[in-house]
């Protein structure tokens, strides 16, 4: 029996957050979404009060990560997640306006699972998110040991 996947959305732009949520819901994904608008609070949730990540061990999490955050770059959060033994198996989807190839490569090198560029063209954006939603619905997030 797997726990339902919780979507952790780290996005400082509330408009983007709203659009992402709308499109995920439109794709028929009803998993809970936990929004965070800055890196600090997101990390506090992910790592727990003790900062070890143990609190989320066994929780099925999927992280939607924006790279441009007010207090830190999303890359740092990505690094933290992928180097934490309790969190490293959680899939991370990087969602950002940057379509810089070196940036994309860097994210994949750090263990990012999917990289999505937010296009200005809304149809493309909505389509990308909905496909992501389909992906969420079939994804099996492994439980942490």
């Amino acid at each position: 029996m797997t726990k339902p996947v919780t979507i952790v959305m780290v996005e400082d732009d509330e408009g983007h957050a709203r659009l992402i949520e709308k499109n995920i819901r439109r794709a028929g994904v009803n998993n809970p979404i936990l929004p965070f608008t800055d890196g600090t609070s997101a990390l506090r949730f992910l790592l727990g009060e003790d900062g070890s990540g143990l609190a989320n061990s066994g929780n099925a999490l999927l992280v939607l990560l924006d790279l441009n955050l007010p207090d830190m770059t999303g890359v740092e959060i990505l690094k933290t997640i992928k180097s934490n033994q309790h969190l490293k198996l959680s899939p991370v989807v990087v969602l950002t306006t940057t379509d810089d190839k070196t940036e994309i490569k860097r994210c994949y090198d750090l263990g990012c699972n999917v990289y999505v560029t937010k296009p200005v063209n809304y149809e493309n954006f909505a389509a990308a998110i909905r496909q992501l939603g389909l992906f969420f619905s079939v994804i099996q997030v492994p439980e942490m040991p």
Partner: protein
Amino acid sequence: MDEASATESATDGRRSARRLPRALANARRRVDRLRLGLGLPWLFALGIVVLVVIGLASALLVARTRDSAEAANHSLEVENAISTMQLLLRRSESGQRGYLLTGDERYRSIFDRSVDEVLPATDRIRILLADNDNQQRLLDQIADLLKQKVDEMKQTVAHYDAGRVADAMALVRSDRGQALNEALGPPLATMKTTEQQLTRSRTETLRGTSLQLLVINLAGLATIVLLAVAATIETRRTQQALRAASEQLAGVNEALEAKVAERTADLVEANDEIQRFAYIVSHDLRAPLVNIMGFTSELEALRGDIAERLDAARGNDDPQEAARDEQLARDVDEALGFIKASIGRMDRLINAILKISREGRRDFHPEPIDMSALVGAIVASLEHQLQETGTKVRIDRLPPLTSDRLAVEQIFTNLMDNAIKYLRPGVPGEIAVTCVGSAAGNVYSVSDNGRGIAERDLERVFELFRRAGTQDRPGEGIGLAHVRTLVRRLGGSISIESVPDHGSVFRVTLPKRWTDVSAREQRL
């Protein structure tokens, strides 16, 4: 270099930059002083003048010495001649006396030999004294007396020869000869004294002149020695001043280099700053744009929902109401359409900035490029447009390059694109790609027979988001700005020549071999 030391060196550079004009002025002043001072050339000239003066003075004095010596000699000669004359007179007299006393023929021959030479002797003295009127007068007197004396002696001898011994004796006894002898005494003495005095004074002059010669030579020697010393000192001073000036110049050079390095660092920093700025701005502008576009689309969807709800609430019977609904829907669509079109355009502009900033930061990888093949491939990829417009392309044999392939490809793709895009309607296009080598690198020309560009727009077309001519073709005004950025980064330059309604020629000069340094220099 860490930040602290960079700041430090920048401050250093600035300080040395401030010092620079002062140091330069110092060096210049030093050199000026050298020029104003009694320079070596002057000393040299002075030395030559002194030598010439000594030479002239010596020559003059030597000439004068010779004159004095000759004059002294002359006086001696005169004295000598006078003595000779006196001797001849004495000898004739003693010959006469001997003959008269003994009648011996030997005395007679002594007399004969001597008496006839007495008067010629005066003639010789006369010649010697030609330059002295006083002596000449004395000589006239003497010659007169001598003539009388000679006559008297000849007469006595003649009497004796004729056997008139008594007459001869009477003549001798008359004391006339003695009287003549006595009369001859004073003028002869005066004459001799005069000549002796002359000799003495001339010898004096000679001695004086010799002394002068010696003094002048010694003085000249001393002057030359002084000049040599002065020249040595001057040389040393000049050398020192030159060394100081060259040291100062070296300092100035160093300061200049520091300044150049500082400027270079500043410019590189400024350039990086601009690139970063462009990058950040374009990203940050994009985020709100995503929202605007997203919620505009949401609104569009909402409009449909609202219309449906309205219809459901009101019932859909009244054709008048339906027409008004349709009108409203069209208005809303129009407004949303404008918003979306503008967002699309803004997105393209931001993308263009992003692209250019990215090109400015991309690392270049030089490799040998067969330019004929590269341009040929571009033409092949444009085949469709070429056929559509009936355009012919001529590619000359193009010399190869060692450069960044992608950048060169983008440059020529843009230029060829433009050439096809801006042909004159109804005129079959003719495009030529040629190349000439030059010292600066290879100059590739892309020429067309298209619509051309007005002169006032020639510079504008290279600016970002600026376009020229009739705006009847799609585009954002990015292509040529991008091309120029790339060409500059490749260490080259681009120029344009155009005649409206006849065509344009774009000339791209690229270094035959791209190196990081050449590009960097070009960029600064």
